[in-house]
């Protein structure tokens, strides 16, 4: 398995706040990588460093063998990003179908219309995530869980090589959390993607996740296998309080 993402000595800052400090990371193709850490650890920043949305002060990021800075526009089409859930105005004049269609827009390109195949792909993505019956509904009328499914469908339509998920199970009830976790697992297996899944709750990571990194205050303090990471000392150091992983 070749390397698909290579981050070398990357520092990302927002004004006077340094969110990621001299971080290096290599991700092999087809990996399901979990990123764990407390609030403010730099988890979201790590994802935005990979897709070019973050402000990289120093270091380099290579994705699919290409330098991100020089090929940002092209690489963004190959990297799907599911951001943290956010409030959508219930009056927004965008339907579920339109919100998902956006995922295809970048792929199709400027000055080009979507074709029949694209519309079929949109319908397939909607059905796969289980919101096909809601496609004509305003996006702002959906529940948080349904909106998260829409975001995943949109990401799928890019036909990406890499999928970045930023706390996709946050603000969801246990039932919706389980649905999202299973959906992501199915997508990962069926599409042979490289997935980076950010969360601060270990048990939200699907079974497919075999590798983890721990982020704390902008630095990677652990990178390795999932099972090996479940040590009391390591978890306690990460969250700065006594934590013990029970049987998962």
């Amino acid at each position, binding site marked *: 398995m070749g390397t698909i993402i290579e981050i070398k000595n990357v520092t990302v800052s927002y004004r006077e706040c340094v969110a990621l400090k001299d971080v290096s990371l290599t991700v092999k193709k087809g990996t399901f990588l979990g990123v764990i850490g407390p609030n403010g650890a730099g988890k979201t920043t790590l994802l935005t460093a990979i897709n070019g949305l973050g402000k990289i002060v120093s270091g380099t990021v290579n994705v699919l063998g290409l330098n991100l800075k020089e090929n940002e526009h092209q690489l963004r089409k190959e990297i799907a990003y599911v951001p943290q859930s956010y409030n959508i105005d*219930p009056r927004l*004049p965008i*339907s579920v179908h339109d919100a998902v269609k*956006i995922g295809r827009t*970048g792929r199709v390109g400027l000055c080009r219309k979507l074709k029949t195949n694209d519309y079929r792909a949109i319908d397939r993505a909607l059905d796969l995530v289980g919101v096909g019956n809601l496609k004509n509904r305003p996006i702002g009328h959906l529940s948080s869980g349904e909106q998260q499914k829409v975001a995943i469908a*949109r990401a799928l339509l890019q036909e990406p090589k890499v999928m970045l998920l930023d706390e996709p199970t946050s603000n969801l009830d246990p039932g919706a959390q389980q649905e999202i976790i299973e959906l992501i697992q199915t997508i990962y297996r069926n599409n042979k993607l490289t997935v980076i899944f950010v969360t601060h709750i270990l048990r939200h990571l699907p079974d497919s996740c075999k590798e983890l990194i721990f982020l704390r205050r902008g630095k990677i303090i652990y990178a390795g296998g999932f099972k090996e990471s479940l040590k009391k000392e390591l978890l306690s150091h990460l969250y700065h309080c006594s934590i013990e992983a029970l049987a998962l």
Partner: protein
Amino acid sequence: MVDIFQYGFMQRAIVASLLGGMSCGIIGVWIIMMRIPFVGVAMSHAAFAGAIFGLLFKINPLGMALVFCIGSSALIGPLTERADVDPTVSVGIIFSIVLGLAFLGMSLIEGPKTEALNLMWGSILTVSTNDLKLLFLTTAVLLLGLSIFFKEIQAVLFNREIARAIGIPEKTIFYSLLFFSGVVVTFNLNSIGGILIFSLIINPPSAAYQLTYKLKTMFILSAVFGVLSCFLGLLFSCLFDVPSGAVIIIVSSVLFGICLGFSPKRKVSLGKKQSQ
């Protein structure tokens, strides 16, 4: 009454109403959806300030209005991003600068300030053929751009971060729409007036927003409401000999009030509050 429509000035006024209402209505959807309504205020005052300085230095007022408007729109984006300032704050800063310049220019004009005051209130009945040509060109480019780039514009209006993440040139689209906002405001300055034009940019799309959950429909409705406001303003202006710009704004505000009253979205939000 019917005879009046045979006169050239009235025919030009009708065409200006159609093109002005349409262009302001369309660009207004963008401004409302991006939640930067104050951009309309800043742009209209920038155009007004530019025209004042054009009068002061005896340079084409419309040309100077365009320079000031485009200059302001060129500042808003970078000020937001490089200075890391909230868009509404950056627009407010630009507004305060151009307002100061406008009144400075007014105070420096010697003698009667009639021409300057006409720019404040506008006069759709004195629109020239040249004004119409510019308006027609602007509206045509706007409609063409909207039809070609609709899917990208829709993505940017939904969420700028997501649009950027997908590979859409979000910044180019955002800056282009700011630029077109400036152009539309400038070329409607003579007919609607610098003080009043921002209302024609805000009211029709706000009214349309109340009635539909589809973006395409919102653009169409906003254009229709813009044109309707201008036509009715022109009609009442002729019937009752009142300033057309002011009546256009009042009509557009009444239209918004009617749409708000009948808004299906208002019922949805009330229902959600009650269920909470």
